[in-house]
């Protein structure tokens, strides 16, 4: 169970990205977060693993208070929370397998990293993760030589290395074409259904949310605008979330 209480984030320039968000997300849900650009989707996701420190409020995950964790505790919490990004955030010059193994760093003795040593078993684990996302044959290529969809799958494999119980996906398909988008979303769905990983995924397209999510959370100007199953979003709700002039675009 992930509990978000009165979460507020005000940036140093005074911009209020999130105001008083309250959420409860049970284990195993696939939650889509929708909203316009700048509505606070990324800030919300980054507050959960404290890539951004919230201004006020608490985030409690499995009884652990993330917001008050010390650096060391935070690292232990973070290694159970996977995250994938819109820009994939791979080290482009490094090989695919190195990128995937770097997802395991939270479990490896930091002294080993100084000499770039990775235990054998982690290597095997990385190959297995790549196998799972279907690009094991690319393991020793440079990350930059892969297509966008393949890079995002490397990102998923990297998150898998953490043995995550919660997965944060920040616009994972916004840089991809529709067909590739679906393939990446399918992998996320697989993780949700097979491994029971809770997934919080911010999306631009409502159609993707309708196709994959159990529950949709809509943000507007940092406030919670809607929280419920995707079927409940009718035209009126849609305009509330996206503004009067918006038209829903289907993505196939």
């Amino acid at each position, binding site marked *: 169970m992930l509990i978000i209480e009165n979460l507020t984030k005000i940036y140093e320039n005074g911009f209020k990205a999130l105001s008083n968000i309250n959420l409860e997300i049970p284990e195993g849900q696939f939650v889509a977060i929708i909203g316009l650009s700048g509505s606070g989707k990324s800030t919300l996701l980054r507050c959960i693993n404290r890539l951004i420190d919230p201004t006020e409020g608490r985030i409690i995950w499995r009884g652990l208070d993330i917001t008050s964790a*010390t650096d*060391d505790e935070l690292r232990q919490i973070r290694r159970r929370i996977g995250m994938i990004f819109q820009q*994939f955030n791979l*080290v482009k010059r490094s090989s695919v397998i190195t990128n995937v193994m*770097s997802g395991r*760093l939270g479990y490896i003795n930091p002294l080993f990293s100084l000499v770039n040593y990775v235990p054998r078993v982690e290597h095997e684990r990385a190959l297995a993760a790549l196998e799972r996302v279907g690009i094991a044959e690319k393991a020793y290529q440079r990350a930059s030589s892969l297509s966008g969809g393949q890079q995002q799958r490397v990102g998923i494999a990297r998150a898998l290395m953490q043995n995550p119980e919660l997965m944060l996906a920040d616009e994972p398909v916004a840089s991809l074409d529709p067909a590739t988008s679906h393939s990446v979303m399918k992998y996320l769905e697989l993780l949700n259904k097979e491994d029971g990983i809770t997934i919080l995924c911010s999306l631009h397209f409502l159609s993707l949310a309708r196709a994959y999510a159990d529950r949709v959370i809509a943000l507007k100007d940092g406030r919670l605008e809607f929280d419920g199953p995707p079927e409940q979003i009718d035209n009126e709700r849609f305009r509330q979330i996206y503004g009067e002039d918006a038209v829903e675009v289907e993505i196939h």
Partner: protein
Amino acid sequence: MLNRLTSRGARRRLLMVVAAAAVLIIFAYGWSVTDINLNRPQEPLRQQNVGNALRELLSPNIFQQDYTIINATTPILMDCPADGSAPAPAEPTGGDEPHIVVIPACAHSGEIVTVQGYNFYPDSLARINWIATDGERRIRQVVGTSNDNFVTNTDGTFTVEIEVPRIRGTSGQTHTVEAQGRFPAGLPRFSDTTGLVLEKMIETIFLALIATSLSILPSAILSFFAAHNLMRPVRMSLGSLLVGFALLPVGWLLGTEVLGRIGTLAVNLGKGAGFNLGAVGALSSLFLFAAVTSSRAQASNISLNSDHLREIASKLLLAVVVVATIGLLGGLGILFGGLFTEGLLRYLSNFIGSLGQLVELAILPIAGITGAFAVSSAGMSLALNGLKKLHGAPAHLLGGVLGAICGAILMGMVASIGMQAAWLGLLPPVAAASLASGILPALYRRFVPQPARPTAAGRSIQTALSWVGIIAALVGTAAVLNVDRAVIAGTLPSTRSSVSLPGLTLYPYITQAMLIGAVLGGLSAALAGTKATFPLGEILYNTTRTILNALRSIEPLIMGLVFVIWVGIGPFAGVLALTLHSIASLGKLYSEQIENIDSGPIEALQSTGANRLQTIMYAVVPQIIPPYIAFTMYRWDINVRMSTIIGFVGGGGVGFLLQQQINLLRYRDAGVAVLAIAIVVSVLDYASASIRERVM
């Protein structure tokens, strides 16, 4: 509207004219300040001098030809007999030996005779001697010239007129006319100057190489501290920081005392012949133990109450192992240093021996630093839980106490630097000012009710208060420590009355500074409380940047002057000067590369739970390796250029030779050095450019 537009245009034009006039005047002033004088270059003597110098520079003395002198003689009768039976002039023999003919074959003193030479070396120097019966050679200059030598024709002949020397009482004697011609002996070879220049050029290239490679590691480490994107997020709770800082001197003392002994023991163990593999085994197993104990358990559940004692023990153990390993390696180095005295291995042996000596010399500071960091980091993790539970007044009280201790330590350190030179005395007031900058704004926030969202007015009041505090602390500290006297008269603080503690001498100057530090630090930290976050990264970043910029602004030539005083004339001084400058310069260049990297992977790795070191190793390092290689090559290129002139101040290399040659006005030799520099610099320029192109 139109009117306003035109008037604006007119104003702009007027402004442009005024600006242009101002620029012109500034430029004209510069013209006269730099003493530009168009008459001097036109003076004939100067033109001739510069012509000669350039001619010689452009005729570098690269090759050398050895010559032998071959003599050809012919007799001449002094005073033609009165009976007119003058001997007939000898005919050219027609052989291929060099020979000469004098016409006429008899002559009076003071007469002009013609000397013809055959089969001499073409276009080379020759001279005519007159040998009387006394056997003495008298050089006869060619009539109409003032040179002893003349040049033979292209076909190896010559025809010159000489005057018969006026010697009394020679009538009737037969004298000898001798022509000495220069003939090349053997093949042309490289001149001695070329050899010397080559030797010095190799020294120059290696000087640059060593300086560059020595600077890589320090500047790479510094570059991380000078990269804003890496340092900005580094924040710490003030309480932890103060605990850590207060423990630094304790750790240093413990380190030099305890770890220092271990380190010295390890050095001796490594040096000694009694060294055996058992020591290596014991140390490596110790290392393994430390590594294992410090590794985090791979438990699937998250334990937030990690075992602090085990962690602390492993940190201290690690410190012991690090110092012992370094010491052992240093000792082994010294051992190896004495092994070979001949052959190529001699260089290696000497090099490793020097490194070993360096370790031996530095083992106490190394132990001190390691101890300081180990103790302070152990103390921080021990205090973490306690500090977390502390709230309200106790947090502020503890902050005050710790702040006072840390302020005193900080000001004590700064003051001991400030004692070394008059103008370094400016440092303590600056440090005091930075300690004091937060006090007044914090008081304002505490005692004036604050609106929920900070207003612009509130912010500017706080800025103003902060400046008041800064200036007050600056002036106050300067007055207490007599900085004005130090700066104006250049006098150092008195060292007369002092209190001696074991390993530490406290002068009144330092104690005063420490008192100020205690008050200011205590106040600041008490107001902030232990819970406040401290922008440690921002402070480290600014400090590193300031030091790098200051170092970079000092030209290597000036650094060279200082190092020549320290280590004497020679390439070592040059290496030190170039290394120091390269560290500053590469540190800046490297850090800019870090600031340019893609921040995505850093964010991604942080989100996986990697710690800071791991994030740097896996997200930053792969991105910066190509630009680091490129900039290192570039720096080597610059260092070669610099090392060609570092010799002018005694820093070794080809510049030292060039300066001597110029001072002795040997421009043909100087030409060789200039040519060598031009070749090496352009080759390296090309090489470094192509390597840079390839890696980027």
